[in-house]
């Protein structure tokens, strides 16, 4: 593909479908075995315990069958995927150090704008390796750590050996095992007790090589009474063969701390997106997931919060958009393992042109978690007759005197709504867009401004051609 693409009509059509020529320092061969795991660990210069953990996880991966619930994973060929690619030799510390070609990619994704607007620290993952990382000085002074995972492991081995794999162990599921075996990239965040980080920590990443799996591994620890926001957005180019993304996000929110993790993911339409993201919330801690899933061929993703301490709170907001040929099997899990814990789950899905979006949720109240409260609302919006929405809410309640509510709606964009808006001079296409925007507004309003704008723009692209 030529290098001289300029922003214009073509790019507006396939806004995030562009790609740069690949430039790698190291690319492992396709396939997944112990030799590859050794190579990855050697390239990264990891401690022995991590290499041993990777090998152990690989055996767990081999021993677990491919899941048959959720979406269709039968076409996923584990041997046809590159599990490790290293694009540049050194970590970039400042924007100037980032190679021009990679900068161009970020330019097109609008990263520098986000940067200019309100961040000085950004972890951005390009291919399987973070290439650019900077940290705002005042955060450093406050003792906040925000680095890529490789750096995190290298510089904070004690934290890693204590917490890595404790929230999501390799035994949790097949893809958590895969990730543990081949992980690279992702972020490490630590916020010391009582520190309140006011600006969001942001990370952008994307897939850029054919058949590249991305296996980012993020570990976040918010210490007692601390507060922070983490925002991750990603847009992927469009390719013809299957790609795999299998991330693991582990979060620990300690006593009285507060944390929000926001993601907008727009994978190209051939990506299998199989992510395990889970948080532990201790006494009076608040954990919030805000999750936007667009794109991908199949997404299976159920952000979870385990409420481990009295008075812990979980809030999970998610949007899924399933277009033609796509299946979004999204959802949430709220595990009440302590008294007076409360959870709120709001899920919104939109299906269009035969797309399929579902909510798969679990609310579990353990014995002894008296006074627990949970409220689940899932709304589905179907844009046409061919699309599909499924809801699989599971509730396991082992304690009396708890308050649990569940509400689910499925609606269609009605002719009456369209006629009403059109009668005010608004075109049918714009009217449809307005109804969809209104539907997701309760979640979009929780996003930082520029992400809300991007979310609306992405949905607008998905909506193109929705009116005959």
């Amino acid at each position, binding site marked *: 593909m030529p290098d001289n693409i300029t922003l214009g009509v073509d790019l507006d059509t396939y806004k995030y479908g562009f790609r740069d020529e690949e430039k790698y320092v190291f690319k492992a061969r396709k396939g997944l075995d112990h030799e590859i795991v050794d190579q990855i660990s050697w390239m990264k210069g990891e401690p022995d315990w991590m290499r041993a953990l990777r090998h152990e996880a690989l055996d767990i991966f081999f021993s677990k069958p491919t899941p048959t619930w959720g979406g269709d994973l039968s076409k996923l060929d584990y041997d046809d995927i590159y599990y490790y690619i290293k694009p540049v030799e050194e970590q970039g510390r400042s924007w100037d150090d980032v190679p021009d070609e990679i900068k161009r990619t970020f330019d097109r994704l609008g990263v520098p704008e986000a940067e200019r607007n309100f961040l000085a620290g950004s972890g951005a993952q390009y291919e399987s390796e973070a290439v650019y990382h900077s940290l705002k000085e005042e955060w450093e002074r406050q003792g906040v750590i925000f680095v890529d995972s490789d750096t995190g492991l290298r510089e904070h081995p004690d934290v890693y050996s204590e917490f890595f794999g404790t929230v999501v162990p390799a035994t949790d599921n097949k893809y958590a095992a895969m990730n543990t075996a081949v992980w690279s990239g992702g972020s490490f965040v630590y916020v010391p007790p009582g520190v309140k980080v006011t600006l969001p920590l942001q990370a952008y990443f994307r897939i850029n090589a054919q058949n590249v799996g991305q296996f980012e591994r993020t570990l976040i620890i918010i210490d007692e009474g601390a507060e922070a926001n983490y925002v991750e957005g990603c847009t992927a180019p469009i390719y013809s063969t299957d790609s795999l993304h299998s991330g693991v996000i582990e979060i620990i929110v300690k006593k009285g701390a507060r944390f929000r993790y926001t993601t907008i993911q727009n994978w190209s339409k051939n990506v299998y997106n199989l992510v395990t993201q889970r948080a532990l919330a201790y006494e009076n801690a608040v954990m919030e997931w805000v999750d936007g899933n667009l794109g991908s061929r199949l997404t299976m993703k159920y952000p979870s919060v385990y409420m481990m301490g009295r008075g812990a709170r979980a809030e999970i907001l998610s949007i899924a958009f399933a277009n033609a040929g796509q299946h979004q099997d999204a959802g949430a899990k709220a595990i009440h393992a302590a008294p007076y814990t409360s959870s709120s789950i709001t899920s919104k899905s939109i299906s269009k042109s035969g797309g399929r979006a579902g909510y798969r949720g679990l609310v579990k109240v353990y014995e002894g978690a008296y006074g627990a409260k949970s409220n689940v609302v899932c709304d589905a919006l179907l844009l046409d007759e061919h699309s599909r929405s499924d809801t699989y809410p599971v509730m396991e309640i082992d304690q009396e005197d708890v308050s649990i509510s569940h509400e689910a709606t499925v609606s269609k964009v009605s002719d009456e709504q369209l*006629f*009403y808006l*059109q*009668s*005010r*001079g608004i*075109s049918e296409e*714009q009217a449809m867009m307005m109804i969809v925007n209104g539907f997701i507004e309760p979640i979009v309003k929780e996003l930082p401004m520029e992400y809300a704008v991007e979310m609306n723009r992405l949905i607008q692209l998905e909506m193109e051609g929705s009116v005959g």
Partner: protein
Amino acid sequence: MSATLVIKDLHVSVEGKEILRGLNLEINKGETHAIMGPNGSGKSTLANTLMGHPTYEVTEGEIWFKGQTIIELSPDERSRLGLFLAFQYPSAIPGVSVASFLRTAVNARYPQPDPASNGNGQLKGMSMREFRRLLKEKMEMLKMDPSFARRYLNDGFSGGEKKRMEVLQMAMLRPEIAILDETDSGLDIDAVRVVSEGVNQLAGPDLGVLVITHYQRILNYIKPEHVHILVNGKIVMSGGPELALELEEKGYDWIKEAQVGSSK
């Protein structure tokens, strides 16, 4: 010169059933007309057909608006030409604020950039400052609380609030012909008065109004010069304001009987 809105021999079917059977009507800017009729006479069919609802099929006849035939136009095109319908049952659009909806509707009236051009699709229209000023002015005129603008369109609105919202839209969009479909239905007498006062403030030489109603009550506030009686999809009698009063006194049976009598 012909009237602003001309309806000629209009026949309309819904799902194969003929509802309007040869309706004729002319309305000019500056005039106020009322169409009265019993249930099932075709009142709402007329309102929806004029605005272009896809369920209503025009099988015969013509509708001319400002010298242009509009039967083939979509509802949004009709609106941008200057036609307005105040709905009997306005739809709720959750998540869309009154202000952002009105801004989109107002801006849709400005010439739009050519989609084929390489611009970034920025909508042309009224400046934010000008829009806010206009909205504030119209809301004050209709005695609406400013917080109304931030609420989601018709979502959880009371019957009276919905109808006031319709009048606010009319005030913002400044149509040349406005059709009020059963605007008084479901409202208590105070709400009817408030809504009617709003319409009256908008009335003037640049606006023609067609009030469609079952009951005479709203006509105590919005005073039409012309009253038409619709029975079985046809206007069977036209007259001045006194016709509405007579109808109120005698009921629709009198007309129906007269109809049966005359057709013998």
